C-alpha cells in the first residue's frame, strides 16, 4: 500500500500520455480495474512521485514495454472452465469439422494457454491438420512466450485435471516434455498457430473466421468499447460461425444480440 492518494484525474492524464506517445488507447477500459493495475505497478517499481512515474511511462520506451505487460492482465490457464472445453469438443468443433478448412481466432491470447488447449482438442478430433489458429494479443512480449509453448511445470497438475474434466481421454503428459521447471508442448500443436499483435481497441478485422474465442478480455472494457468489439467480431465471423466468451461475459446487452443464438448453457453464441 502507498500512502499518496492517486486520484482519477491523474490516472486519466497518464492514460492520455500513453495514447499520445505510444498509440495505445486504454481510456475505455473499466476504470476501477486499470486504476488498480496502475497503482500496483507504481508502488511495485518504487517511483519517487506519480509525476516521475508518468514521465517515465511517457518517455522511456523500454519501461513502457514493462508498463504494457503489467497493466494488462495476463493470467490464464489451460482448459480453464472444463465445461466450456467439453462444449467445444462435443457441440462446436464437430460442426466445424464438416467444413473443408477451419479458421479460428483466439483474441487476447496472452501467453497462449487457451490456444494450446484448443489445439489439443482439435488434434484429438482429427481436425488440427485442416485448422489454422490465429492467436493475437495487444502485447508483443506475451506473444513471444506463447510462441514457445512452454508453461511452468508446477501448473501442469491443475491443467491435467482440467483436461480430464473437459472430456480429454489421452494421457495429458503425452503432449509435453518436461524441461527443468517448464513443460514444453509438442510442436505439432503450434505448427498450426499464427501469432500476431492485434489491438481490439484500434485495429480492424483481418480475416473471416468460423470460431472466435475471446475469454476474460471484455471484462476489462467499458460497455461502449465492448459493443465496438462485438461489432469487430461480427465483421470477422462467417455466417453460422461461433463466438465464445468468458464465463462472466455476455452478448446479451448488445443491440444485435438477436442475430446470435446461444449454444446450450455455455457462453458460446452462433451467428445466424
Amino acid at each position, binding site marked *: *500500500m502507498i500512502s499518496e492518494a492517486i486520484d*482519477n484525474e491523474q490516472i486519466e492524464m497518464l492514460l492520455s500520455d500513453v495514447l499520445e506517445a505510444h498509440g495505445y488507447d486504454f481510456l475505455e477500459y*473499466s*476504470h*476501477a*480495474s486499470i486504476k*488498480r*493495475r496502475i497503482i500496483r505497478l507504481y508502488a511495485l517499481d518504487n517511483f519517487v512521485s506519480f509525476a516521475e512515474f508518468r514521465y517515465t511511462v511517457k518517455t522511456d520506451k523500454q519501461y513502457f514495454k514493462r508498463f504494457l505487460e503489467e497493466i494488462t*492482465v495476463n*493470467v490464464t490457464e489451460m482448459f480453464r472452465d472444463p465445461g466450456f472445453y467439453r462444449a467445444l469438443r462435443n457441440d462446436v468443433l464437430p460442426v466445424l469439422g464438416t467444413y473443408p478448412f477451419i479458421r479460428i481466432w483466439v483474441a487476447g491470447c496472452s501467453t497462449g494457454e487457451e490456444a494450446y488447449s484448443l489445439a489439443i482438442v482439435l488434434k484429438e478430433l482429427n481436425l488440427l491438420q485442416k485448422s489454422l489458429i490465429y492467436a493475437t494479443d495487444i502485447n508483443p512480449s506475451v506473444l513471444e512466450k506463447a510462441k514457445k509453448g512452454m508453461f511452468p511445470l508446477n501448473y501442469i497438475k491443475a491443467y491435467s485435471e482440467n483436461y480430464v474434466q473437459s472430456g480429454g481421454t489421452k494421457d495429458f503428459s503425452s503432449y509435453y516434455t518436461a524441461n527443468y521447471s517448464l513443460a514444453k508442448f509438442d510442436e505439432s500443436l503450434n505448427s498450426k498457430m499464427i501469432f500476431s499483435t492485434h489491438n481490439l481497441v484500434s485495429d480492424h478485422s483481418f480475416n473471416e473466421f468460423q470460431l472466435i474465442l475471446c475469454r*476474460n478480455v471484455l*471484462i*476489462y472494457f467499458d*460497455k461502449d468499447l465492448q459493443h465496438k468489439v462485438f461489432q469487430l467480431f461480427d465483421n470477422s465471423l462467417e455466417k453460422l460461425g461461433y463466438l465464445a466468451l*468468458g464465463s*462472466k*461475459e*455476455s452478448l446479451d*446487452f448488445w443491440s444485435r444480440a438477436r442475430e446470435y443464438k446461444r449454444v446450450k448453457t455455455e457462453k458460446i453464441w452462433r451467428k445466424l
Partner: protein
Amino acid sequence: MAETLRNNCKALVIGGSAGSLDVLLELFPSLSENMSFPIILVTHRKSGNDALLTDLLTSRTRLKVNEAEEKDRLLPGNVYIAPADYHLLIEENETISLDYSEKVNYSRPSIDVTFQSAAEVYKDGLVCILLSGSNADGVEGLKTVKKLGGLVVVQNPKTAIIPYMPQQAVNEVRSAVVLDAGDMAAFINKLVK
C-alpha cells in the same frame, strides 16, 4: 460503541473465509426487507459451485440475492455475491467490474481488493464487516476503509469458528467495532434509513 457513520450507509461489504458461512446463514433471515443500500458479499470458496451460496442465502432472506455479473448496477435491497475466481471491484458509477488478475493473499476473489475499491467510491458512506477466516485477507482493505472515513466492523474473534482473520483486524485496525455474530443483524438493520 461510539463509532458510527457520519453519513447514511450507501453500501455494505461483508468479507469472510473459513467459518463465515454459519454467520451468514444466521444473519440473513434477520435482515430487514427494506435495505436502503446494496450488500456485497466476498467469500473465499472453491470454483465450480457458484450457485450453492446464492441458493442457500436466497432461501433465507426476502432480499434479492444475485451472483454478481460484470457491469451490474448496485441497487438497494440487493445482495451481490462475488463469483468464485474473480476479483470484484466497484466503479465510480456504482457498477461492478470483475477482474481475473493475480490472486491477492492467495485469494481470488480477494476481500482486500473489494474493500479498497468500495472505499474509494463510497468513502464515508461505506460499512465493511470482516468475519471468521484463516488468513489476513481483508485487513489491509479495512485500513483503507477507515482512512477514507468508512465504518469498520469485525466479528468478535471469540465467537468466530476460525478467529485468525478477525483477530488480525482487531489488532491492526484502530477503533473497529467488534460484534458477536448474533448481534450483527440488529447492527445492520440500524443502518437502514
